[in-house]
């Protein structure tokens, strides 16, 4: 099949060989699991259990709140040990509301009814099941999948693209999933296609994963699913890049993929959808790649949500030598961890322990305006000018240059010969703009409150004055009546 030309992108060393040939191993159930209530884009889940409650694996412990939200479930059977703040897998190192479960070691599933033929369900039933299972985009974006399904149905999506890009260096969990569980993924893909009524279904897999391509092609034989090799480059796993490569269409700025009639899901999401629809099993575990130069035995693990990162490192033989940096996610977009005592969440594709030789230089030099970053930017922005404006304190000018379309993929920082932390500038500016937006909203509501108050005070005063006037009028009328009566009495006696 003819592929379309792509803009920008870089070719970092893949380093996938560290973990790519290690088969999936199941992590033994840790004693404690720390399940954050916000593991997705949108509103956090609301806890519906109490400390001391006994829960089964797959039991709902946090209900979804609002339109864009997702529930969370117990990743194993056990007792709720705590509900409160726990350090989150976040660059700030701050805490987040978390439910702690003490595993009882039985790992007993909640009884669920298996659906013999999932294709006998209606599209609505499928998306309800996906929503109830708490499935979110497992490629890392963690957008609630059911919301995407419903949105796609409303927008008459015609093309379904399944993303097997996995372009981040080191990370191989999707690769292993496609090699070992291709048939299940394809069933999930066909369920999603059936639920949104798409006509074309394409699975895009980077050509540096030949084993995954072969396994998926074999599994997709005699189905409507087309498996297509796409060039290996970063960021091939960006949904809009995948759409461009396979269809030639470009999603407009500020737009959604549904605007051009395309729905994109990750391969791991498709796998989770199959589990949810066929077995009624919620998303309580995921594949995580443990890799990096410091790891004794890199590998791919099936990990219950809420396992601490340090447990994964220990299971993989600990550190060969002290890591210079620990990263959650890939090296391009992942977050640096200050501590390994943070839980794995639904969007965690990998944990890396990198040696000093594997991490980049940190001393930035002045920009030489070589425009390498402009050529590398897959969105077509001008990173050097945007960063210069932000450095000078003019975020508005950066927005005019398209800051809001920046996907923080890190290509510009990667190629910059002066090692300027470009993406850091953009993340800072985006945060600052959001803060300004919040302040503006607050000011507007303050204004409304202050106006309502002064109106109320004026009204109360007016009403008081009116009441006083009425009383005065009544009093005068009474006095007049008394006078008249007195006068009348006087004339009568006279």
């Amino acid at each position, binding site marked *: 099949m003819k592929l379309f030309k792509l803009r920008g992108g870089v070719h970092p060393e893949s380093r996938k060989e560290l973990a790519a040939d290690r088969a999936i191993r199941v992590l033994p159930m840790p004693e404690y699991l720390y399940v954050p209530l916000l593991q997705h884009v949108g509103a956090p889940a609301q806890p519906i259990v109490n400390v001391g409650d006994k829960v089964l694996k797959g039991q709902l412990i946090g209900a979804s709140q609002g339109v864009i939200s997702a529930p969370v479930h117990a990743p194993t059977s056990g007792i709720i040990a705590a509900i409160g703040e726990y350090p989150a897998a*976040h660059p700030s190192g701050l805490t987040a509301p978390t439910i702690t479960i003490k595993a009882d070691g039985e790992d007993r599933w909640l009884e669920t009814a298996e659906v013999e033929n999932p294709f006998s369900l209606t599209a609505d039933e499928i998306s309800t099941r996906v929503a109830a299972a708490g499935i979110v985009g497992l490629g890392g974006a963690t957008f609630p999948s059911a919301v995407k399904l419903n949105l796609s149905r409303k927008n008459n999506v015609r093309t379904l693209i399944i993303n097997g890009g996995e372009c981040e260096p080191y990370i191989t969990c999707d690769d292993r999933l496609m090699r070992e569980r291709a048939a299940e993924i394809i069933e999930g893909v066909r369920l999603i296609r059936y639920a949104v009524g798409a006509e074309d279904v394409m699975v895009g897999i980077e050509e540096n994963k030949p084993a995954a391509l072969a396994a998926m092609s074999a599994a997709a034989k005699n189905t409507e699913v087309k498996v297509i090799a796409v060039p290996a480059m970063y960021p091939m796993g960006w949904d809009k890049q995948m759409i461009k490569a396979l269809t030639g269409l470009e999603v407009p700025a500020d737009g959604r993929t549904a605007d051009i009639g395309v729905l994109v899901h990750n391969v791991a999401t498709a796998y989770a959808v199959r589990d949810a629809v066929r077995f009624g099993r919620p998303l309580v575990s995921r594949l995580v790649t443990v890799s990096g130069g410091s790891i004794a035995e890199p590998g791919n693990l099936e990990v219950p949500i809420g396992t601490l990162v340090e447990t994964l490192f220990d299971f993989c033989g600990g550190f060969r030598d002290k890591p210079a940096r620990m990263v959650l996610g890939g090296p391009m977009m992942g977050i640096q961890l200050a501590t390994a005592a943070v839980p794995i969440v639904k969007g965690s594709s990998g944990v890396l322990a990198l040696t000093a030789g594997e991490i980049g230089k940190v001393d*930035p030099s*002045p920009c030489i305006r070589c425009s390498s970053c402009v050529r590398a930017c897959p969105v077509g922005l001008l990173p050097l000018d945007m960063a210069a404006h932000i*450095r000078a304190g003019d975020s508005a000018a950066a927005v005019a240059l398209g800051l809001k379309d920046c996907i923080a993929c890190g290509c510009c920082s990667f190629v910059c010969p002066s090692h*300027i932390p470009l993406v850091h500038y953009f993340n800072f500016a985006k945060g600052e703009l959001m803060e300004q937006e919040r302040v503006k909203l*607050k000011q507007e*509501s303050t204004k409304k*409150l*202050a106006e309502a108050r002064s109106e109320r005070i004026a009204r109360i005063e007016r009403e008081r004055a009116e009441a006083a006037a009425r009383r005065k009028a009544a009093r005068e009328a009474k006095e007049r009546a008394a006078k008249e009566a007195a006068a009348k009495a006087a004339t009568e006696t006279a």
Partner: protein
Amino acid sequence: MIAALTSLTILGAILGLILGIAARVFRVEGNKLVEEILDILPGSQCGQCGFPGCAGAAQALAAGSAPVTLCPPGGRAVVLALAAKLGREANLAGVKEAVPMVAEVKEEICIGCTRCFKVCPTDAIMGAAQQIHSVFRDACTACGKCEEVCPTESVKLQPIPVTLHGWYWHKPNVQAQQNVPA
């Protein structure tokens, strides 16, 4: 004599007519600038600037008799917006980057005197006589009026703790290396 009188009278009449029409055509509704400045100001009428409410401050700003840094609760954002609107230099040196604060009632020592919610410009305090008062955090603008009137120091402004929701990356502290030989 008559010619001079008539010509001056006619001239006066015509000019008067023109002035009268001009006054109607180019009528200005109040001072536009004052209204625009009012839109920028927080509008909580807290009076921390020393003027009677935001309208007074807006008039002083429009007249040029007040600095753009007059509004403490507005912070940096308001200073920059005012400077841009009035075309003045924004001197941010004196502006404290206010730590976001919120009023909090210490319930053990609240005596339910109702003074604080009577002065609150945004109705952010709920309470009744002899009842413990409570603050609506979302409506509080941290103007500090309640703190001033509280007889038991029960209402106090407290910094809002940073959460994941509000956290964002700090600005990169880049000291570009100048490779200039010494």
